[in-house]
């Protein structure tokens, strides 16, 4: 593939010179959809601070393929706009899509099958990561960053209150109690009812499979026993007032966090970056530990967030777009920029590169941060598959869970409501759904 690109580059330089004299270039004779006549421009939609410097690095190294970066909003917004733009036939060539919305993007006809261009790119990734962008044997994206779940916690306050950092969820509940006893204004963590991705991650860690597909038949497992047990676990903590049942990242939450009244956040590895944005003065107080386990001795965790670089069905030159996607996902140059900006790269080489990097800004004292991260990333739940209507699930979950917390009704019921909404939506849309 690389040789081909070089050839294209050479041709386009020639094309440029010729085009200066006459309008019909030398290679204009062979009309081919996949090989452009001259330098081309790719439109790229992505969010996050790492994207612009990555695009600049690509543009510098590839004068023949210039990429224009647009920030079309975060995961949810960007995906919604991609669907609309695809229908209006003005979608970008390449875009970032979160793993859990990727199936919805495939069904909506946004993401293109790029299996024929990915070659042996698969070897650059751990199987659990690569599978996040592979469906039904076809590849729809190149993984860029990953968010294996960890526990980001306020080490200084844990020490001050004399509470050990828990390694299992049972210990976590005990620690939650100890924290409340030591300081009645303080909670060990927040149960944010709108955090669909976080809850899904915890349920997957407990062994739940929210969507599975066999042949043409989907099975939805949102109210499976494993998920319900996770719901019951948090229910107990909420009922005993051991966790704060409030939305995350509100001015209210941020103030409590900065006051040292919220001590931890179980979330993807990107949490350090997010917290640094709202609690910069607390740098040095925080640290990261592996997520508590449901069963002692089983270190597998799920992912929360993370995204892949997707070539859209609107791309005029899918092969070149795929080359760009591969570079953004798997190249060392791109990985180095991601690490600098606080993302955890999805590729193995990128993850190795982190070991030589400084710890994130929030925890400069934690020398082994990246070593711990690498260990977490090596133990992820092997196969996670998301369904074609994660958007519906996410919005139903947010409303049902918020209402449950608000009205004091069981979280279990909220999960069942979400499950029903998801199945109903899939049946209306015409998917075959197994009835259990």
């Amino acid at each position, binding site marked *: 593939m690389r040789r081909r690109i070089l050839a294209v580059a050479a041709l386009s330089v020639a094309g440029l010179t010729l085009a200066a004299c006459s309008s019909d270039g030398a290679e204009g004779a062979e009309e081919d959809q996949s090989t452009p006549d001259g330098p081309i421009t790719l439109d790229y939609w992505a969010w996050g601070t790492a994207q612009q410097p990555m695009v600049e690095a690509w543009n510098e190294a590839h004068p023949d393929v210039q990429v224009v970066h647009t920030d079309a909003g975060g995961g*949810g917004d960007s995906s*919604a706009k991609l*669907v*609309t733009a695809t229908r209006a036939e003005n979608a970008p060539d390449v875009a970032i899509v979160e793993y859990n919305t990727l*199936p*919805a993007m*495939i*069904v*909506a*006809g946004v993401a293109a099958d790029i299996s024929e261009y990915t070659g042996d790119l698969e070897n650059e990734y751990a199987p659990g990561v690569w599978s996040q962008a592979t*469906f*039904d044997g076809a590849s729809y994206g190149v993984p860029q960053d990953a968010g294996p779940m960890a526990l980001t916690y306020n080490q200084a306050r844990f020490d001050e209150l004399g509470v050990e950092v828990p390694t299992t969820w049972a210990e976590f509940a005990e620690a939650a109690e100890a924290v409340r006893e030591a300081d009645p204004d303080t909670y060990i963590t927040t149960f944010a*009812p*709108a955090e669909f991705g976080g809850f899904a991650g915890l349920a997957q860690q407990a062994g739940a499979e929210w969507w599975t*597909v066999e*042949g*043409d*038949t*989907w099975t939805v497992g949102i109210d499976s026993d494993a998920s319900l047990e996770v719901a019951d676990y948090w229910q107990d903590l909420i009922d005993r007032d051991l966790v704060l*049942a*409030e*939305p995350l*990242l*509100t*001015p*209210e939450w941020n*103030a*409590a966090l900065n*006051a040292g009244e919220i001590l931890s956040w179980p979330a993807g590895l990107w949490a350090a970056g997010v917290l640094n944005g709202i609690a910069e003065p607390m740098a040095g107080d925080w640290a990261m530990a592996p997520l508590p386990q449901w069963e002692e001795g089983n270190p597998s965790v799920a992912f929360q967030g993370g995204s892949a670089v997707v070539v859209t069905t609107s791309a005029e030159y899918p092969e070149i777009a795929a080359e760009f996607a591969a570079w953004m996902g798997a190249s060392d140059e791109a990985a180095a920029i991601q690490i600098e900006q606080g993302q955890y790269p999805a590729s193995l080489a990128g993850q190795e590169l982190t070991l030589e990097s400084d710890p994130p800004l929030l925890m400069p004292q934690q020398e082994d941060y990246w070593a711990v991260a690498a260990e977490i990333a090596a133990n992820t739940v092997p196969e996670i598959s998301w369904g*074609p*209507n994660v*958007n*519906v699930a*996410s*919005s139903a979950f*947010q*409303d049902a869970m*918020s*209402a449950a*917390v*608000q009205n004091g009704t069981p979280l279990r019921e909220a999960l069942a409501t979400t499950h029903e909404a998801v199945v109903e*939506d899939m049946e209306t*849309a*015409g*998917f075959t759904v197994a009835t259990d």
Partner: protein
Amino acid sequence: MSAEIAAAPPDRARRRPRSRWVAPYTFLLPAGILFIAFLAIPMVYALYLSFRGLRVTGDGPFGVQEETWVGLSNYVATFTDPEFLAGFGRLAIYGAIAVPVTLGLALTFALLLDLPRVRGARFARTAIFIPYAVPGVIASLLWGFLYLPSTSPANWLLGQLGLPELTVLDGGILFGSVANIAIWSGVGFNMIIIYTSLRGIPGDVYEAARIDGASEWDIAYRIKIPLVGPALVLTGLFALIGTLQVYGEPTTLRPMTNAISQTWVPLMKIYRDAFVRDDLSLAAASSVVLALGTLVLSVLLLRITQKRTFGES
């Protein structure tokens, strides 16, 4: 008309009526084109969309969805969705607070500013009007900070006095908190409309009243309020339509509380269906229902008030 033209005698007489036709339509043209392009066509398209829907057509678990006719199923879904109907219920409570308070305050302020020998009128008018210039989302964010317990100065004061904290983004008081933002932004605008209408009342009416011994209170109650009736109907209509279109305030406050769902008011549900659930057709059907509802309510309001305020006309 055309018969008249045909019957009209030759030459000059024929040319004049035609130019009489051309001028007004030429003036109407830009507005007409804009109306057709940005209002009529989207409306017809929304109506068309509301009878269509995305359904899986291809084989395989990731069969691509295509748009097909689905008949009235989007309308059935709209009317059988308890959340959509509950949204109207919440809207009614919100409107019952926001509309009378906004209009009441606007009228009071306008009457106060219109009193003779009132001091600082220009400053007060600007001060009351300024919140209207603050964009809705920013107003909601500002109020959001004021509402949240740990960033609220009111709670800080209460804490200093040893009183319990107030939570205003929960329970029944939530409606008041959301309405308060709209009232804060809306009073100024409505006050200006009513005030302008008050300034249009000729001074000799007041003079006559004063000679007859009427107090300022009598003048306000018996002369000013009845005479600004049309302005009150207009602002009332704006407030009603504004209520049915409530979206920005609750959407901005939603991330700050568990109490506001994504379907809290009808427009929020329409947004969710269109852009979160990728169901434009259902959103189109709900929009049509909401638009028709707004139309019916507006006509009713005008019918009821017209006879009283505009007399027999």
